[in-house]
């Protein structure tokens, strides 16, 4: 069989695999040809290996999977292309946000304690999600029956919310007045920025207002 004929078979296989949208095995590929011109299996295999070589330097490769041959995007390019299909992540549930907030404000805290405050059980999913996201970690186990894990927030949690320390969270008393929250957070971040400038460091010895002094402990508790 001439090179040209092999090449023709190779291109027919290429077209079929690209159009089929599913793997095709050798028999299915041979079915493309009428009986008189159906290439022998060896010929088909030869054409397939030629095709495999032809794909070098392309973004896809000829792969053999259990149900047959198919073209598959090479991993190098799959990463780029994956962006096409990235689904917009779903939003977190209220329950998850409440759990996260309680861990942030009441750490170290056990799941049972969160449940006591929230008045409902906390699903394992929520804890797993928070741990997978690395916003929450186990810092120890409480010495009570069952030895429940105690959860605390992480540096990644602070990083995500652009904080250097939990001190920058608004005090609980102000949370009830939500209009304040945005401004509160703004101010704290503002204050933080000012600390970078040595001249603007406020010098007051009031120990009771930890909020104003968090530069001294910020960033060290990780």
């Amino acid at each position, binding site marked *: 069989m001439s090179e040209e004929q092999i090449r023709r078979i190779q291109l027919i296989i290429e077209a079929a695999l*690209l*159009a089929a*949208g599913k793997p095709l095995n050798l028999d299915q590929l041979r079915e493309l040809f009428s009986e008189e011109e159906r290439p022998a299996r060896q010929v088909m295999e030869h054409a397939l290996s030629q095709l495999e070589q032809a794909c070098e330097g392309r973004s*896809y490769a000829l792969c053999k999977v259990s149900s047959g041959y*198919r*073209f*598959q*995007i*090479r991993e190098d390019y*799959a*990463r780029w*292309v*994956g962006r096409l*299909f*990235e689904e917009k*992540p779903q939003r*977190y549930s*209220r329950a998850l*946000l*409440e759990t*996260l*907030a*309680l861990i*942030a*404000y009441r*750490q*170290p805290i056990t799941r049972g304690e969160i449940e*006591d*405050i*929230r*008045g409902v059980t906390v699903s394992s999913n929520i804890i797993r999600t928070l741990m*997978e*996201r690395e916003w929450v*970690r186990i*810092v*120890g*186990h409480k*010495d009570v029956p069952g030895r429940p894990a*105690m959860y*605390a927030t992480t540096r990644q949690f602070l990083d*995500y919310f652009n904080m250097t*320390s*939990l*001190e920058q*969270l*608004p*005090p*609980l008393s102000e*949370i*009830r007045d*939500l209009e304040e*929250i*945005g401004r509160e957070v703004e101010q704290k971040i503002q204050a933080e920025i000012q600390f970078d400038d040595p001249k603007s460091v406020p010098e007051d010895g009031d*120990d009771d207002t*930890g909020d104003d002094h*968090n530069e*001294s*402990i910020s960033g*060290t*508790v990780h």
Partner: protein
Amino acid sequence: MTDDQQVQENSESQTPEATQVASDTDTPDVASVARVAGQPVKDLPQDLYIPPDALAVFLEAFEGPLDLLLYLIRRQNMDILDIDVSEITRQYMDYINAIEAMRFELAAEYLVMAATLAEIKSRMLLPRQESEDEEDLDPRAELIRRLQQYERFKKAAEDLDELPRMERDTYATSAPLPRLPQSQVHPDVELKDMLLALRDVIRRADLFTSHHVEREKLSTRERMSHILSCLSGDRFVRFESLFTIEEGRLGVVVTFLATLELVKEQLIEVVQGEVLGSIHVRARAAN
């Protein structure tokens, strides 16, 4: 769709007579009879007899009266503009009569066209009434306009059918992505959303339970977490090692308060082997 396809398929798989008629419609010019001295021969004998089976197919092969008229005109190699109304009308009526005689259901449009043709024919026989013509459309001009217009879109439909199209002349291509390590996409969270959620918890807690999330120095709680995480494992740790001198006085205070809180909450164990000896701490649950 299925109806229409049915028609298409019917017109291709019929008795020889039917096929003959159907192919006539596809190539009317070829089917036109011999020409004598450049003039097409009229009064085609085969017009007058159409086998009943074929008639239904024949009728379905036309897209309506305009299509039928175009066929009759083209078969005589006439230009639309040169319609011999009398002759076309006669042939048209022959078909209609044959179809009606077979009691095939005939679309009303065919009868309307028959009336139009009859009107044109009669007008041409009568002297023109100028007063009427000022208001009426000349029915013959109108018919010609409609025939031209229809023929044009009949052709456009044929052209459209010739365009290379998907699933006939070409196919879409695709290749799947390999299975990649799951790179999870996380939802975005606004700090405000978390705080809103907390507000609701606090409100509920205030209402339904005795637990109050009281105002708390977060630096202390944060430090409690930190100390606990340093105490993992079954080892006593020197109390002093919990403090970082570089943090200054406030840092020492925070650590100390956190330690006291941990003791109070029975989370850590503090031991002192001898008076004024070194203090060691360990997590109570650690073992």
